[in-house]
């Protein structure tokens, strides 16, 4: 655990590069299309092969619903079928005759929990050296690497996140050793033989970027740039200039040599790839916002943003989310001013709050982390509902990752990603009872077989244990 923690300190989240969610439309070659046009760039060369697993039409009634967008329904009904949410409403919501019905008395339903910042798969357990696949720490800018090419689909951590945390979607990021760490990948929390079998269909890519201590320490220690925060910025700006030039060349219609790192950065400038920026200090976030304006891109989310509370107004005005822990602090200098009221002050100021983990243990308790942040916010007098706090774990991260049209809240037509909790998920005494991903029941606390066991754990002590 110590090693993971230290790694987290180093490996603050790198920004994800969002990729456009789809392969460029396969040319519907009309007869008179110019024959010589260069082949279109395949933006999705490692496409998702994930398909929803079979589920049965299911209704949960008499249950408390947090819809993920701040709504709450008591004695409600949720009905899903064919991998989509069909209806959500009060006690009178009709339930078709031939569906499975669960009574949710005393229980709660939320959308599947989403962690916008995870290293499951690229820093999997066991945390042995051979599994250190999260930081390509050989150059301060490595936009050419893709986290999905490091993800080990057999990480036992995925199962704990599902069973104890109700996690249905997660963004896997490269680490934070580099200023530009590479592309993220968004996964459904579903075991598969290949990472392609886990990839969230249609999710944009992200680019992980990192401010502050980590890049300057890693490269400064090697006597190379950057060794200072001003060096961090200089390397970033030089790189964005190259990306602008590359993009111009790419769009000129003439032949050019492909550069996969530059393709990612150009994708950011195109608005196809989201920026997921590890950044602790408020002053550095403000500088990054100016850099984004200088080069014409948008920051989706600052991760580990422990000082966001100091500039909540600025973040609201720039429509940037802060992905934060409830209470981590003091493990490094740039985390010294972290306070447990960070999320509360941001929320109260109207800025976007996301609770993230960056940790294979706390991803199992993101609901509890939100509960702590909520409690500290209320204690300073802010009126925030339970339902609003659930939004920090569902709709807000979905929006920041560009998948809010598909998941993140319980709305008809969205993916049937949901958790049935055995009590209020903001209580320490509550746990997931059932978890559905795209309408398929993938965890059931009452059924020892309805719980994934990774290849790694097969035949090992504790195989299939409750964990």
């Amino acid at each position, binding site marked *: *655990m*110590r*090693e*993971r*923690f230290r790694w987290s*300190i180093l490996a603050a989240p790198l920004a994800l590069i969002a990729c456009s969610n789809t392969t460029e439309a396969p040319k519907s070659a009309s007869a008179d299309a110019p024959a010589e046009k260069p082949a279109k760039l395949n933006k999705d060369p490692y496409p998702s092969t994930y398909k929803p697993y079979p589920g049965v039409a299911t209704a949960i009634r008499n249950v408390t619903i947090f819809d993920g967008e701040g709504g709450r329904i008591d004695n409600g009904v949720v009905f899903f079928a064919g991998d989509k949410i069909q209806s959500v409403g009060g006690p009178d919501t009709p339930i078709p005759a031939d569906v499975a019905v669960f009574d949710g008395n005393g229980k709660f339903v939320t959308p599947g929990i989403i962690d916008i910042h995870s290293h499951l798969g690229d820093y999997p*357990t*066991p*945390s*042995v050296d051979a599994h250190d696949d999260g930081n390509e720490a050989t150059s301060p800018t490595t936009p050419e690497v893709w986290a999905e090419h490091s993800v080990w689909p057999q990480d*036992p*951590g995925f199962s*704990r996140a599902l069973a*104890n945390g109700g996690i249905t979607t997660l963004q896997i990021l490269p680490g934070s050793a580099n200023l530009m760490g590479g592309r993220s990948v968004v996964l459904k929390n579903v075991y598969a033989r290949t990472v392609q079998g886990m990839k969230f269909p249609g999710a944009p890519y992200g680019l992980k970027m990192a401010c502050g*201590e980590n890049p300057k320490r890693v490269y400064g220690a090697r006597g190379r740039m950057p060794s200072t925060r001003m060096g961090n910025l200089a390397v970033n700006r030089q790189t964005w200039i190259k990306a602008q030039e590359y993009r111009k060349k790419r769009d000129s219609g003439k032949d050019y040599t492909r550069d996969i790192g530059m393709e990612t950065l150009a994708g950011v400038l195109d608005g196809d790839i989201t920026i997921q920026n590890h950044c602790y200090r408020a002053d550095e976030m403000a500088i990054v916002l100016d850099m984004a304006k200088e080069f014409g891109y948008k920051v989706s989310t600052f991760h580990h943003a422990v000082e966001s*509370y*100091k500039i*909540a*107004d600025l973040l609201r005005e720039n429509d940037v989310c802060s992905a934060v822990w409830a*209470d*981590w*602090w*003091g*493990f*490094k*200098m740039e985390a*010294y001013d*972290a*306070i447990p*009221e960070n999320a509360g*002050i941001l929320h109260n*100021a109207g800025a976007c709050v996301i609770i993230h983990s960056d940790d*294979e*243990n706390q991803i*199992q*308790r993101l609901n*509890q982390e939100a*509960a*702590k942040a*909520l*409690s500290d916010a*209320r204690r*300073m007098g802010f009126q925030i509902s339970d339902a609003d706090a659930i939004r920090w774990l569902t709709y807000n991260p979905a929006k920041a990752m560009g998948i809010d049209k598909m998941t993140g809240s319980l709305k008809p037509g969205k993916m049937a990603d949901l958790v049935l909790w*055995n*009590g209020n998920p903001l*209580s*320490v*005494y*509550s*746990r997931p009872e059932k978890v559905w991903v795209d309408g398929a029941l993938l965890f059931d*606390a*009452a059924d020892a077989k309805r719980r994934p066991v990774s290849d*790694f*754990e097969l035949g*090992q*002590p*504790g195989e299939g*244990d*409750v*964990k």
Partner: protein
Amino acid sequence: MRHLLLAAAALTALASPANAETIAITGGKLVIGDGSAPIEGGTVVIRDGNVVAAGAGVAVPANARTIDASGKWVTPGVFAGFSRLGLSEVDAVNGTNDKSGGKSGFSAAIDVAPAIDPFRSPIAVNRSAGVTRAVVAPEAAGNIFAGQGAVMDLGSDSDAVTKARVFQFVELGENGAAAAGGSRSSSHLLFRAMLREAQDYAAGRNAYDDELLRAEDAKALQAVLRGEQRLLVRVEAANDILRVLELKRDYPAIKMVLVGVSEGWRVADRIAAAGVPVIASALNDLPATFELLGATQSNIGRMKDAGVKVSIGMTDDRDSHQLRYTTQYAGNLVSLQKVPRATGLSWDEAFAAISSGPAEAIGMGDQLGSFKVGRVGDVVVWDGDPLELSSAPVAVFVDGVEQPLGNRQNRLRDRYRTPQEGSLPKAYEH
């Protein structure tokens, strides 16, 4: 100088604080901390820093300052069963981090007491979360023996060390193997050889040489060999636990406590039979290393059911800053009671595992960790169930002295409640 140091040590040894008074906390839901059920409307009376009465129907002394805790919970302060509290301000800033003395060349002789700094900000932060005592261990580096740990209080006064040199800490799992040259064979050999050298040293044998131990280290191990100082042994894997229990058979005088113990459930009967107490990590459930393959959150509950004396400690888990997680961890073990096939703790057991449990494991249960008569007056008044995430302390007493609950984080919170700057920069808001 030597005289002054001794005098200071005497003053800190469980002395009654100068400003002690008689305090009666009445009307609350009273938790004794020994595993018994909470008492509605109970009273605890503290005099001169110690518990003199606690329970239902306890009379309030005439001269007592009375605190009405109606609608609140009243518990012994949280006892962090394993920590590096007071040893670090900012972990990654070397000058503030005293967890390990690994490059000094010393091992067993290292004593955390002089490094424990009550003015470091983690003390106030964790105090305001209801933590009042902590087991403080050095971190091993380059040797299986990390050195001698202490018990501290989290009071705001300048004397934090409750008792120095309470235990010796040794690593005998993967960490120990690495420190011993790469294998468990070498860590066990080293353990035996170092104890043999320590015995030779004590016997004044000519055979004594300082190949493994400096004289100071050999001296420090005498108290362990005589059973006067506990030996806290970090082990995680089932096999490592069994092999350590065998060491205990060979050194019957040693008073051993196991720390970590993530696979303890696999050999719980053997631990129970050996009568060795355990300070376990509460929520390890991942194979973070190969010694944690069988880790499960049900570990503590299963050990408890097997008769092991088990309590909660945060071993290598945010151990210098986040001891406030202790209540959350205990609450999670309670939540397991509702999970099919899982084994948790009852609420009463869970609270004992973070109060009297660790105090007893390190041999100070007669002085600390509960509201039994004669224990020190570490009291927390909570606005709700102390294990619940929405609860927080409204009053904290250490040694019977009411404590300030503010900290640096509160000051930052208050300054930025409204993030915008006003007629003067934020730096003028103080």
